[in-house]
């Protein structure tokens, strides 16, 4: 084992209490950053879940639409104009909107209605655990997620309730389709969605465009923009980005998450810097001895940086285990924390950078060391 590593390792483990304090500081910091960033990714994924599961090459939407939940409406005649363009195979209407769900007990709760042409399969419920998609074509049929049974005051398949004084019956049950707003999604046919949300018959929120095989998406988009009035045409990726940007940045949610992450980085850096500094100070006579016996400054820096890296590796390993537990604990909640492989790699790099930056104060102290101090002790 290289002696620099041995020396760094022994210096660290010489004072176990300080080591524990340092590691707790790093773990706290990294877990904080991990959770904030995990929430960021989780939130980002939640706000685009409908876009992710829609079957569309292009989205036609009212001009100025900020996110999927935006209730602005399109004229249905625009759909027919779209269908007249070469390369457009289908333009499936989607209607969304908030409504009140009235339980058999008489209590009400808000729901978010998602209506689509179920025969065309534009935006159907997924992860079905009970019932079938076809069953949603039946009169009054809706699909809900089983995690909202209590909120909706129902017990499962076949349960009934009212939306806008109109009876609905649960014909399909999904698992894991949760809303970040905590308002339950209710899937149904597009015509019934209009009736339940008060959207006039000649209107829709989106048209999901499917292209003919081999059609040029950019060319079709240009055609759509030139022939349809007061609309925007976005790809799924663009709409996803727009929705995410709106919810994360226009609402301040993203800024709050980033601020939390930044706080974590600062706290971690300060804690590691403080402990490394005091450790170096305590070992100053040893560093002076090293200098006296002829070590280069670089050799001493290597010992300090090695200590910082050891802190980083130990701290990050524990933080990763905590993060894994947090991911499992939040998996079934309204806002699951999502930790991707990229995030883990990024966090490890951040931990290393944070620990090395923390070593700077200690290194500055060592650069001022006078090797002749070995004679005064």
């Amino acid at each position, binding site marked *: 084992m290289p002696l620099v590593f041995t*020396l760094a390792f022994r210096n660290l483990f010489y004072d176990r209490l300080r080591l524990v304090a340092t590691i707790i500081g790093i773990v706290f910091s990294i877990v904080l950053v991990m959770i904030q960033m995990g929430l960021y990714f989780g939130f980002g994924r939640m706000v685009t879940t409908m876009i992710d599961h829609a079957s569309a090459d292009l989205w036609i939407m009212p001009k100025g639409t900020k996110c999927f939940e935006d209730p602005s409406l399109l004229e249905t005649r625009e759909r027919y104009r779209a269908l007249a363009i070469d390369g457009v195979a289908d333009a499936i209407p989607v209607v969304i909107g908030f409504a009140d769900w009235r339980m058999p007990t008489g209590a009400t709760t808000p729901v978010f209605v998602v209506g689509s042409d179920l025969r065309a399969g534009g935006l159907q419920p997924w992860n079905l655990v009970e019932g079938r998609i076809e069953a949603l074509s039946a009169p009054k049929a809706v699909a809900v997620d089983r995690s909202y049974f209590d909120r909706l005051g129902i017990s499962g398949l076949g349960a009934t309730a009212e939306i806008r004084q109109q009876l609905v019956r649960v014909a399909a049950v999904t698992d894991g389709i949760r809303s970040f707003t905590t308002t339950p999604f209710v899937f149904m046919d597009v015509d019934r969605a209009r009736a339940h949300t008060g959207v006039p018959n000649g209107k829709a929120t989106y048209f999901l465009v499917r292209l003919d095989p081999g059609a040029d998406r950019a060319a079709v988009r240009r055609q759509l923009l030139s022939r349809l009035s007061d609309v925007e045409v976005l790809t799924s990726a663009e709409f996803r980005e727009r929705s995410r940007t709106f919810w994360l940045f226009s609402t301040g949610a993203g800024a709050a998450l980033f601020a939390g992450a930044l706080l974590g980085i600062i706290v971690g850096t300060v804690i590691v810097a403080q402990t490394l500094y005091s450790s170096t100070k305590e070992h100053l006579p040893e560093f002076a001895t090293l200098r*006296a*016996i*002829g070590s280069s*400054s670089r050799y001493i820096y290597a010992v300090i940086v090695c200590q910082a890296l050891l802190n980083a590796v130990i701290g990050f390993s524990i933080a990763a285990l905590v993060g894994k537990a947090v991911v499992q604990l939040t998996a079934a909640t309204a806002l699951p924390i999502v930790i991707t492989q990229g995030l883990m790699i990024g966090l490890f790099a951040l931990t290393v950078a944070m620990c090395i930056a923390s070593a700077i104060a200690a290194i500055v102290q060592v650069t001022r060391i*006078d090797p*002749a101090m070995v*004679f005064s002790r």
Partner: protein
Amino acid sequence: MTASLIEAKGVAKVLGSGAGKVAALKGVTLSLDGGELTLLMGPSGSGKTTLLSILGCMLTPTEGTIRICGRSTAGAEPEDLALLRRQHVGFVFQSFHLFPTLSATDNVRLALDVRGERFRKAKVRAREALAKVGLAHKTKAFPRQLSGGEQQRVAIARAIVGNPSIILADEPTAALDGENGRAIMEILGGIAREQRRAVLIVTHDPRLLPFADRIVHIEDGRIVREERYGVKQS
């Protein structure tokens, strides 16, 4: 004629500044040759440690020149001085300055590690150096498991393992009892005479006189007297 391993000419050193300024050394000229054990003696505050620090390239003189194995230290940067120490000087300190978290072997190996000598070969050399000072059986011991005399032997092994031409020792027996002090002086004398190295020992202790080839007396920053001896106690 062979050049001296250390040559100091007209060395002066002023410490502190303003009203606290002190002339620690005033025109010291001294040379040390291989094969000699020299004692540097003088009262407290006479400039012994300052001279040792300058000869060991830890301090630079305010005036005068120092040559270590033919190389001048004039204008040398701290890293250049560290290189000179690494290549030519071994140190033995009064309070040993061993690393408490490292074994005897690793303490000695450290002097090779800073020279870039690593791996198995370094370990073998460190053990050989420990064997030379009579500690072949304590290679794995940590400083806290060793007596004062044994710790000083480890420090001597660390000083000699890199084969420096010059060994500088600051009160190496001050923390030891008489028997251990004698043992340490015999080892240092052997290093000087058998390995043809220049050994300079700063001391107050008159019990070390019999081990010296040469005694340099310093007072008030000046060398006031030198004595040479022909026959040594073994």
